[in-house]
Structures are given as C-alpha cells and as structure tokens.
C-alpha cells in the first residue's frame, strides 16, 4: 500500500462527492488491521470509484505525471526554474551545504566515476555488464566488452534495469498481513514454522522461484533438499523456453542448448525466431555477428536472410525475404521444407503462395551447405525445433553455424508449465502448508486455465520475496522485500554457459534481502550474507591456494574464463517420430508474444521502458492488439478502436492497431500489461493477455473472437506516420545495384557542393566531431534510445504527453515501411541531433542559447534558453525536445540518486536535445590534455554508440583521417539526411543495402 500512502501526501484534487479520495481510502484501511486490511482493500478494489481513483492518483496517463507539478506549490516551481536561470535571473543562490566523508574509502577518487563488472540475470540467462558508479551510486549500465554474452553491447532491459533499482515504488519494508516487520522479527517469527517443517522433513514445504542458472543458488537449493528430503522446488517463467528443450528432446533424445554462429553463416532462415530482439538469449552476440555479416562491402559474401514470421518483429524486418504465416502454420511449412530438402518425410505441403518463396529458399540452402543456418523461434512447436535441428544436421550446419551443449537451465527436463501445474495440484490437494515464492508472480502471469490464486489461498503459510508488493505478494501472508541484482552478490550463466558474477554496486537501497539469504535461513537458520554464500560456494568449486587471485580476477573480469559449456557432438536423428501436426488454428488466430519493452511484465513499472516505443509499431505505454490491414478491413475495424477479445469464454478489452506485414486472419497481443499492482507507473495500463493464455496453447491459439465495443481507445505513438512519401530519407538499394553503382545514395538527391557559399566557411582546427550511422547494421532494437535516456537524465513524460507529441527522447528510431502493406520492407533510422554546420536552429535563437562550438558541435545551453521554441520549428529533423511542463522530477530522492551528475537536469520551459554526449567528450579531452596528447580515436564513445549491440553507430574526430568515423564517411554509401537543404549535418548515414535472392526479386 506504499503507493497509496505516498501519492496521497499533499494531494490537491477537487473533492467531488462522486470521487473517492485517497484520504478516505487510507481512513477505511486504517481501521482495518491484519487480514481484514486486505479484504477491505479488495472490496474497495471492486468499486468503480476505486478504479477512478487509481486513474487519477497513479501516474498512468500523463495528466497524472504532470499533475505532480500541480501538487507542488507555485514558488517551488519558480524556484526550480529560477535555480536553472541562475544569478542573472535576479535570484540569489541559496547557501549550499557540503558534506565530506568521515573516513573516505580509499579506492574512491571523488568526482571520477568507477566501473564495476557484474551481470544481469533475465530469467535463466545472464548478461555480463560494466556499471558506472558515481560516489557509490550506480548510474549507468554498459556492456562488458570482454564478456562473450555481451561483447560490449547491451539491450533495453540492461539499460533500464538501473532505473528499476531506484524505483521508489519498490517494496521498502517486510510486511506480515500488511504490517511492517523488521528482518530480525521476520526471522524470529518464521523460526517456529521452519522447525515444524524440519520435523516432518518439509513434507509440506514448497518453494516456487523463477527460472535460474545460478550455480551457487542451485547448490544451495540442493542443500535445502538434503535438509528437507520431502521438500519440492518448482520454477515458473511465463516467457519460457519449454518448446526449445522439448524440441531438442525430440531431435536428440535429451534437452540441449542450441547456440548459433552467424559469423560463419551465409544463408539464414528464421522459423519465427526473433534473435535480433532484446530478450532473446544471445541477442547481443547474434546481433553483433549478424550485422557484421550484413556489410554490403562483403559483396557476394554478404549474408542473406529469409524470415518466416507470424508476429511482426524487428528481426524479420531485417530479412531480405519474408513469408508471413499464422504462428500455427509455421510447423507445416517446416515439415514441407524438411521434405523438400529430403531431410525427412514428415508430410506437409507448401501452399500455392509459398511455393515460389520455398523453391528459391530450398535452392539457396542446398547451395550453401555448411554455411546455411535454420533457427526456430522459442514460441514455435517442439516439432518445428526438431525439424530445424534435422535440417541443420542435413545441411552440415551442426558444428559450424550451430552448436549444441548442456542446457543452461539446469531444470530444462520438466517444462515450466508442467512444474506450475504440479504445484497447483499439490496446493489444491492441501499437501502444501508452507509456500515460499521467490521473485516470480504467478498470480499475475499464470496461464488462465491454471487457477493458481485459489490454490494459493489453500496454503497455510505463504511467504513472498520480491522487488515489489505485486499481485502475488498481495495474497501472501508475508512479503519480504527482495534485492535488485545491483544490490546483491550472486552468479548466473549466459546463453553459452559462461559463468558470470553478480556483484553489488550499492548496499540494498531498501534493506532488502536476496533469495539466497532467505533460502540459507530456511536451510541452516543462519544469516549469512549473499556475499558469504556466493564466495563459500565458489571456494568449494575452486579450492586451492590461488582462490583469492582467481576470485579477484573473475570479479574484475565479471566472468569465469573458459566456463562456457563445451559443445556436444550430437546429430539429430532424422527418423524421430514427430508428434502429429497440430491442425492450423481454425478462424481468427491469437498470437501471444513477450513484450518488446516490458518483457513478461516484470519491467512494467519502469518508465523508461514504458516510454520506449515498441520497435515495430512505435506504440508506447500500452499493448495494442495488432492486426493486418486486410483483416481489419474484413472485420471493418480501424486503429484505436476498442475491441473485446474473447477466447474460450474469457474476455478482455484492448485497443486495436493496424500493422503492415501482419499475417491475415490473426492477431498479436503482447504479455506483461494490465498489471494491478506494478506501481504508480505500470498499474492499470493496457490489458493482461495472460487472462486469455491457456497452458496448452502458450504462444498461439485459434478461434479468438474480436468485437468492436464502439469506444475509441487512444494510443500513444511518437511516430505518427511510417511512410516516406517518396522522399529520399532512408536510401536503400539491392546488393546488385550497390555493386553496379556504389554511389547510388548520392544519385537519389542532388546536394549542394561544399564550396557553394558567399562566406568564408568556419574551419574546425582542433577536433571536428562527427557521427556515422549504418542503416544496414541497425536492427531497430531501441537500446540506444534507452541508453541515451539513462546517460542524459531525460525525463519520462507519460502516455498523455506522448499522445500530444511531447515525448522527450533525444535519440529516436524512425521506422519506415516501403511497399505493400501485406509485405513491406521496413527500415530503421536512428535520428539524433544532426549537429549541422549550418544549423538552422542557431540563427533563429534570440538569446544565443544554441550556438556552435569551435569543434563544430551545436551546443544547447539550457540555462540560457527562454523557450521560444523557434529553434525547434526551424529544425528540419525535429530532433529538439521541449520541456512543456515540469517533466523532470526534482522531488523524489531515489530518482535524484540515479541521475548522471555530469549532465544538467532540465527544468520547465527549456529546449533540450542530443549533445553528442558532450560530458563524455569533455572528460576525454581533459584527460588527454592533462597527459599533453590528443584525444584518441575510440576514446570518446557516445552512450548510444556504446550501447549498440550491432555497432551501427560510430562517433569520432573527422579531422583524424585514420578514425573509424572518417573511414565510414569516406564510404560510397555515406549520405546526409536532407542534405539538399545545405544544413551540412555532422551526423550522416550509410545507405541500407538488401541482399535479395534474384529469383524472388521479380
């Protein structure tokens, strides 16, 4: 209930009688105590007034976000703004305190950030990271270049995770039936029940956790199982890889981890696999290798990519040829393909409209034995996976582009759904009298046909440990506030099995405790810290004199060298009996997918991720129902219609969004929305697709009914229009054309020659910063956008403000569709400030707030800006962002800690924009000058560049002919956006080149 109390304070909303005031809620609750507390809340929660109050009180739409400011009193706002205005705004600076350490930590050099290696677990898989820390505050996540799972790249979840750690809505106390309990109290009250369980060998004790690959934790659990022989440990992940392992089971008789090597691949076929989307295990490495193999400079060696996809993904957008199928039709296609390749006669015929595509594909695959690669998506049927393995085997991919190893998930053998089903059954049968739920939220994300909640309520003692007082916590007696990975010790394994260490950047912000600490207490009733536990385990693994040095090195590197799981020389048995093909869904098919920005809902309360537009449809702050234009026409629906989805009697309401390239007679919904207790940011937005999701059809199901309710349901999208209107914005060609005329990009538009000026052009003697963005490499994953937000303290504005066209992202990624709405080519174009040499924005600023630096940067001086917005009007790229209201949060202390101290926090009424991360440039320059040298190439990396897993963004000094950026700009593909306006942009693009199969081009 923190939320209610917190937002309630100093709230000034017009008290109409029909409105339910927070004060009342608190009143009604205050009388209630213990269990009754919850019931009261539940009753309340039923009433429409409560819903209305949530709408009003919780920053779900921007009105609430901005109303935050209306809660502050007038002078305070002026104060904040004035402070930015500084002395010359006739304001006197207040006396500021300065508070030194008592004893200064000796590794700490004040004013200089430190970097620590750690790893972020997402379900089973971990990603190796470096985290920037200012005076003990983690502020920014970077990839770990040494780490095989990162190679220096990151994804949206990595970048945004730092905000989750500081989230003021995280649970800050342990509660018993809603009443606060200190940790010692928790332990002492639990002792009794633990003793009791010990006595009966834990026959009534069950543990439910998320999937994990942490060696130390697994060991700990085994310890627990020893202490309580009867105890059972279940795991649940809503976005799981059950099918992947089941597929391996079919093909090899054992669950295996499949890893791919794109660096050796020439022809790639994806059977509904979105390996270029954040959240796919190995995303960082695959994206890196894929984009390297897609350089058109490779000429004929350039990789060709075929995609068979159901739900539109940015992965398939990068494909040279796409086949849009219902999710349920992919298996049939795979079977037909296997037959066509003579791999296995498993039935299945290509449909008429697939034949052309298929025959070309088959030829291509056969022509590239050993360099071909077939991937099956996590959401595809086990059979599809088995077939993919078989085909890879037959094409000699195994050992070359594909390799197999022990599953990273130690519990791959039994599917997660099965585990949840068993637990539920046990709970219903009353076997369970003590349940420990660790960092998982089944009450919210369990399949609709598994009634987890009612089963849960049958358990005598329910203990929940997690970051939030979430839906599950709500129904547990105990909630123990957990720790974020940046607050705890531990370990995890990445997609290739490499063991990575999780080391804390900060001691638990809300004095939470890790899973391992709780389990340790259950096992031995001792209170060892996660540090002791992790070290104890590894000592046992790596006993010996050199442990200390080994440990220090591993912590420093962030991973255990050479711990990747060894490849298993297995071959797929072609004659495996595949299960009978599941008949293609009848009627309208519904496709369930993880959400591109909030995954399975665990990031629902992360404002950065909520405001990041979904890569393909550019919608944020919601999960619309995606549908093809043709189908919508047939059902005569249009975008932003509110529709009611009905599947097996279960109903939800949602907004419709028409999506080019969506298969007909199908709709796509993403998981993770419709949270009730996510927090002020994430509660009550979108709808929960879990309400429709059945355990036997996790990823797609037939026979969904779509009915327009007649209401309008507005969606927020920072990019209203996704067509190029025949303008040469993204310039693209086929490989053939590129080889014929490498300079095609320049022939599309005539740009004025550099000499064409009456004036003496400025020369930039010292440095001349510039950026080149390779449109061929960019996969549109949006990581750069979030990285920029984290690095530059960019405010979150909320859905309503985004709808009004006031989103603040300095770096946006534009999508453009080209061609038919059935099967368009989609291009991604990251658009930061172009840093024009003839900047149109500068000339029109009346107060010299935006001017050029001697290094050619278009400086924006926030504290000089009076906010005429003229510069934005005159910016042809519309990359400038304006603080229409007080968007930055100057009040919440946690959010202040998160901020990058090297970047001003912008107040109301000032313009802001991409600065090429001037703070990074300045620091590099100062370091260089102190060493009496020039800034080296690669020494300055912009946040977007550093975050990009695809190496699409390169920044550097144009005066240094040797720099990477100079080389790229020398490329024939290099062109300036709207260069015909003679703005002379410093940011330029390398034109996109597709590599289509000539057979299919006609």
């Amino acid at each position: 209930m923190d939320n209610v109390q917190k937002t309630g304070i100093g709230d000034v909303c017009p008290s109409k009688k029909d409105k339910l005031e927070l004060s009342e809620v608190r009143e009604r609750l205050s009388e209630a105590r213990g269990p009754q507390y919850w019931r009261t809340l539940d009753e309340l929660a039923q009433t429409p007034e409560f819903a209305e109050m949530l709408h009003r009180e919780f920053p779900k739409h921007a009105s609430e976000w901005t109303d935050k400011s209306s809660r502050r009193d007038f002078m305070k706002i002026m104060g904040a703004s004035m402070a930015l205005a500084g002395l010359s705004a006739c304001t006197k600076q207040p006396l500021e305190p300065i508070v030194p350490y008592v004893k200064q930590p000796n590794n700490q050099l004040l004013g200089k950030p430190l970097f620590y290696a750690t790893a972020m677990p997402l379900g089973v898989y971990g990603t190796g990271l470096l985290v920037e820390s200012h005076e003990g505050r983690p502020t920014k996540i970077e990839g770990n270049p040494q780490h095989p799972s990162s190679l220096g790249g990151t994804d949206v979840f990595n970048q945004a995770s730092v905000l989750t750690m500081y989230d003021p809505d995280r649970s800050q106390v342990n509660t018993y039936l809603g009443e606060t309990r200190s940790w010692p109290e928790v332990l002492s009250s639990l002792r009794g029940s633990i003793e009791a369980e010990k006595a009966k060998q834990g026959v009534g004790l069950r543990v439910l956790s998320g999937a994990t690959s942490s060696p130390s934790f697994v060991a700990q659990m085994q310890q627990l199982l020893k202490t309580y022989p009867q105890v059972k440990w279940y795991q649940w992940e809503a976005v799981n890889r059950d099918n992947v392992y089941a597929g391996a089971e079919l093909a090899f008789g054992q669950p295996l981890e499949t890893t791919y090597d794109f660096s050796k691949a020439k022809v790639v076929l994806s059977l509904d696999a979105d390996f270029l989307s954040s959240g796919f295990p190995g995303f960082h490495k695959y994206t890196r290798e894929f984009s390297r193999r897609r350089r058109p400079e490779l000429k004929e060696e350039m990789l060709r990519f075929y995609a068979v996809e159901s739900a539109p993904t940015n992965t398939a957008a990068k494909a040279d040829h796409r086949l849009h199928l219902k999710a349920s039709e992919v298996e049939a296609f795979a079977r037909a393909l296997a037959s066509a390749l003579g791999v296995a006669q498993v039935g299945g015929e290509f449909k008429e409209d697939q034949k052309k595509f298929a025959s070309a594909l088959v030829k291509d695959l056969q022509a590239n034995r050993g360099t071909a690669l077939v991937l099956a998506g996590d959401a595809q049927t086990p059979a599809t996976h088995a077939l993919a393995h078989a085909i890879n085997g037959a094409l000699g991919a195994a050992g070359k582009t594909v390799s197999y190893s022990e599953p990273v998930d130690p519990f791959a053998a039994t599917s997660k759904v099965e585990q949840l089903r068993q637990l539920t059954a046990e709970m219903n049968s009353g076997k369970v009298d003590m349940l420990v739920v660790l960092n998982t939220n089944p009450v919210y994300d369990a399949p609709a046909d598994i009634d987890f909640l009612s089963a849960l309520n049958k358990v005598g003692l329910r203990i929940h440990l997690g970051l939030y007082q979430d839906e599950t916590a709500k129904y547990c007696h105990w909630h123990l506030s957990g720790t974020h990975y940046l607050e705890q010790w531990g370990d995890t394994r990445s997609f290739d099995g490499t063991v990575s260490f999780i080391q804390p950047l900060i001691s638990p912000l809300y004095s939470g405790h890790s899973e391992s600490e709780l389990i340790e207490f259950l096992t031995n009733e001792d209170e060892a810290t996660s540090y002791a536990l992790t070290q104890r385990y590894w000592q046992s693994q790596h006993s010996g004199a050199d442990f200390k040095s080994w440990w220090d090195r591993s912590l420093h590197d962030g991973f255990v060298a050479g711990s990747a799981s060894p490849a298993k020389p297995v071959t797929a048995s072609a004659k495996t009996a595949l299960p009978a093909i599941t008949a293609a869904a009848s009627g309208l098919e519904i496709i369930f997918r993880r959400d591109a920005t909030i995954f399975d809902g665990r990031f629902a309360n992360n404002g950065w991720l909520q405001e990041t537009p979904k890569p393909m449809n550019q919608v944020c702050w919601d999960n619309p129902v995606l549908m093809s234009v043709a189908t919508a026409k047939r059902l005569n629906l249009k975008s932003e219609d509110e529709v009611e989805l009905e599947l097996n009697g279960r109903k939800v309401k949602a907004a419709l969004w028409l999506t080019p390239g969506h298969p007909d007679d199908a709709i796509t919904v993403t998981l993770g929305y419709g949270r009730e207790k996510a927090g002020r940011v994430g509660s009550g937005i979108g709808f929960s697709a879990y309400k429709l999701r059945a355990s036997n059809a996790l990823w797609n199901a037939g026979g969904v009914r779509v009915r327009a309710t007649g209401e309008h349901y507005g969606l927020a999208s920072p990019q209203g229009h996704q067509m190029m209107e025949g303008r040469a914005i993204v310039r693209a060609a086929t490989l053939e054309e590129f080889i014929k005329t490498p300079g095609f990009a320049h022939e599309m538009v005539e740009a004025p020659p550099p000499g064409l000026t009456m004036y003496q052009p400025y020369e930039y003697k010292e440095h001349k910063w510039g950026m080149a963005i390779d449109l061929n490499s960019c996969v549109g994953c949006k990581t750069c956008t979030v990285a920029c937000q984290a690095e530059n303290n960019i405010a979150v504005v909320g859905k309503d403000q985004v709808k009004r066209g006031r989103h603040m992202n300095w770096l946006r990624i534009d999508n453009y569709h080209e061609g038919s709405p059935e099967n368009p080519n989609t291009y991604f174009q990251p658009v930061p400030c172009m840093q024009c040499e003839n900047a149109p924005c500068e000339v029109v600023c009346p107060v010299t707030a935006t001017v050029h630096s001697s290094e050619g940067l278009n400086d924006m001086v926030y504290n000089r800006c009076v906010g005429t917005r003229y510069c934005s009007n005159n910016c042809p790229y519309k990359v400038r962002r304006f603080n229409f209201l007080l968007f930055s949060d100057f009040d919440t202390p946690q959010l202040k800690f998160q901020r990058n101290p090297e970047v001003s926090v912008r107040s109301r009424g000032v313009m802001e924009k991409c600065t090429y991360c001037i703070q990074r440039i300045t620091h590099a320059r100062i370091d260089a000058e102190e060493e009496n040298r020039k800034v080296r190439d690669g020494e300055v990396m912009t946040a977007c560049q550093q975050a990009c897993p695809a190496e699409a963004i390169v920044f550097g000094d144009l005066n240094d002919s040797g720099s990477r950026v100079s080389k790229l700009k020398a490329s024939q593909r290099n062109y300036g956006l709207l260069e015909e306006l003679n703005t002379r942009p410093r940011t330029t693009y390398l034109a996109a080149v597709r590599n289509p199969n000539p057979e299919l081009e006609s």
Partner: protein
Amino acid sequence: MTESVLHGVVAEFITPDELVSACKKAYAAGYRRMDAYTPFPLEEVADAIGFEKTRVPLLTLAGGILGGLSGFFLQYWVHTSAYPVNVGGRPLNSWPSFVIITFEMTILFAGIAAVVGMLTLNGLPQPYHPIFNHPRFTAASRDRFFLCIEAADPKFDLEQTTHFLEATDAVDVAEVTD
C-alpha cells in the same frame, strides 16, 4: 497673488482673417515681443508675427543619425568583439541581418527627438502662463483668436499699444497682468 505685473495687452478676434491682418499690422508697427493664440494651426499667423523657422527638423535628423549608428554598432560590437561565436555558420559581421534593427533604432530615436524637441522648444510643460489670466482666454481653445503684445516689447507702451490694438478689428482689448 503678489502685486500684479503687467504681462501685456490682448486683443480678441472672431475670424482668422482679422487676426492675421492685425498681426501683420503689429509687426509692421515694429512690435516683436508678441504672440497670437488660435484654436487650430494657422501657418500664416506665425509668419505674420515674424516666426518663420523651427529647429525641430534638425533635432529629428540628429536623433535619427544617432539612433542608426548606435543601433548598428551595438550589433556589430556584440557579434564581432563582445562575444564572437559561430552561429549557424554565418559570418560574425552578418550586416544584412543587422539592417532591420538599425532601421528601427533610427526611427525610434528620430521620433523621440521630434517630440521631445518640440516640447522643449515650446517650453512645455508650462501649466501656468500669465495669458491664462485673461478672462475670456478659454475661447482660445474653442473658437476665438487672440493677439497679445507683451509688456516686455521695447516699443510697448500701455496707452499707445492699447490704442493700436483697438484700431484693429478686435472685438475686445484687455490688459493681462502676471
């Protein structure tokens, strides 16, 4: 009111014609320190009493020149020496962009010079003036015309001057004291 000093003799007329001819006579008669009062501007009257030229235009010109120069050089100085900085790749001395403000400053200064000049030369504001002591002077701002020969005039002599004015078409001749 302190003991009264004679300010002059005032003659009142009904038509401008009468006033003008009276003025001409008086000027011919050698009177110089005199003034005529009319409810609307009449070029000829001023000429008749020998007041041909005004220095208002000169002042205005001066104001204009001052304004123009200061206007331009302020901009020039700001952008070339006060804080020279590259704005959108334009030259530091972008004189074409400076034209507008130069022009505006010219007009502004000239206009102010004209008005302030006119008022000061006219010795305004001057809410108190002996002529107001004339009992019927309110008519001067309505429909009557007045000629006042001041006592300060060397040729002034109460007797003669009064007679002289009575000899004109004046409907009334009266002394005005200060």
